[in-house]
């Protein structure tokens, strides 16, 4: 009987460990939907470049497709970067601030 209990508890442990990972939790359908959405939007965003240069957009679309395929569980990677930790949030915020100011200031100098 004690062996059975041990087995049961180990299964429970395994289950609780697994449920922290978004690809193995109960919410598999959600993770797959998110995966498709991110993949499709990457390709569409790359296609958006055609307003600037058609050839560049073809190259970027193929590149984005290959890179996205080879790094496939994208959704879990995206999710782990969007956590509630203050460090990650402030990192992205400060990066955005820097990129925005730099791009807009130096970008418009040559208009």
């Amino acid at each position: 009987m004690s062996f059975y209990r041990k087995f049961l508890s180990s299964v429970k442990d395994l289950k609780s460990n697994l449920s922290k990972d978004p690809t193995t939790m109960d919410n598999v359908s959600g993770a797959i939907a998110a995966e498709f959405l991110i993949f499709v939007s990457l390709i569409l965003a790359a296609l958006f470049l055609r307003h600037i240069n058609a050839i560049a957009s073809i190259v970027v679309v193929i590149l984005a497709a290959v890179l996205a395929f080879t790094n496939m569980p994208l959704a879990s990677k995206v999710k782990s970067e969007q956590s509630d930790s203050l460090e990650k949030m402030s990192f992205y915020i400060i990066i955005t601030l820097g990129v925005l100011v730099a791009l807009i200031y130096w970008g418009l100098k040559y208009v």
Partner: protein
Amino acid sequence: MNYLIPLLVVIPILSALIVNIFDGKDKTVKAISLVLGILVPIIAICATVGVQYFGGHNPSLLTSSLPANLVNTLVAGYNTGIVYAFANIERIFIFLMGIVAFLAILTYFSEKKEVSGPYLYLIFMGLASVIALLLSEDIFNMYVFFEITALTQVGIIVASSTEDNYEIALKYLILGAIGGPMLLLGIGFILGTIGSVNIADIIFVISNKFVQPYSPGLVIGFALILFGWLYSAGLPPFHTIKSAVYSKARPNGSAILQGFSVLCMLAFGIAMYKIFAYIPYFNTAIIVFAILAMVLGVAMSAMEVDFRRMIAFLAVGELGFIALGFGIGTQMSIAAALFQAANEIVITAMLFIGFGSVYYLTNTSDTRKLGGLIGIDSKMAIMVLLGGWALAGVPPFNGFQSKLMLVQAALDAGYTELAILAIIVSVVIFFTFVKAFHNVYLQPKPSELKFVHDKIPKVTVFAVAILLIICLVLGICPNIVTDVFIPFAGGLI
């Protein structure tokens, strides 16, 4: 002089102060806040379109009293005081926000025996400041009211006594203390270049080439104000904290908080569009953040198991649709963005209050632990389902009309990719919502599920029903609002 315009701001502030004074006397507080709460939408309907010059500083009247050497100069036309402009578009948004706030207060009363004066104070103060934000024609005044809104948002989370609410409140404040001062710095750059903070004056100076349109001060001002706009609206990179904020408040609080964010986004978005639309890549910059908000918000909500966080992320994703409309920048797309904003205030509030009734019943929001709730109140379940359809854009609801308008505008403008993306995102929203609905209402009830309350208060059902009726009316007769939005958008371009 139209005294009803300043009253739109004065009455909520006054009611905030009064309910705070009468804290402890529940009946008085309830009566006062209900009476004053319904007064805001009524005034919004009754007030006539007009402009309010505070201190009587009407520049066209002042020209006669100016010294001779100042007549016909640039300074003569400057507004020397704060100006509030009230047009039909403000009427629609203030009316919708007032209704949402009133219904949220109503549900708060029904779910709590003793009411808290300070909590109502925060709600009214926030309402006053977003209304002022919409009315104001002065970017510094907008900044001030925006900071008051942010503080009241923090206050509402702190007062909500959910788990981890203090942590989220402090995070929001710390990140806001980076976003807010940057917005102010941008306003400072504009002030330093132009010498006025009034939007009409700024446009006049720029369009008549009194300053270099690409002078460094204006350009950096634009970058910083754009960053501040991202913070005020909760677009990426602020989407995680904004959704955390929504999910940590009580359901009625979240309904109000998201309305505040939409109005902040709208007020600053319109101001930015008026001032900076001449800058090349202005539209591209906004479209980038719109796509990020749509994709990240909806993808995160699809992976979420906590339904309050899920709706919060969906709310952020919907903000992306509004930003997309502004980014495409044609008359129809901006009108669609405004229509989408009006719809989002109502639909998301309805979902927060409707789904919030589940949290009220069971005190949990984890969809894995829930199930079978359709047996408790099937009317509520059906209304929540219809609300989710409205959010995803299923006819005949208002979400369908605004998204159709947006997709058509994107196609007309030649952005086929954006139209496809908008449709795909809507499909995922639909999927996410139906999945959560199935988990909460339809799957078999787990045995360990315990109920805190047995019944949903009638008032909550009533509030959700009213919001659903607004959705239906706007969906069947979109002309009520689009007749206002389309000319307004035409004037912006």
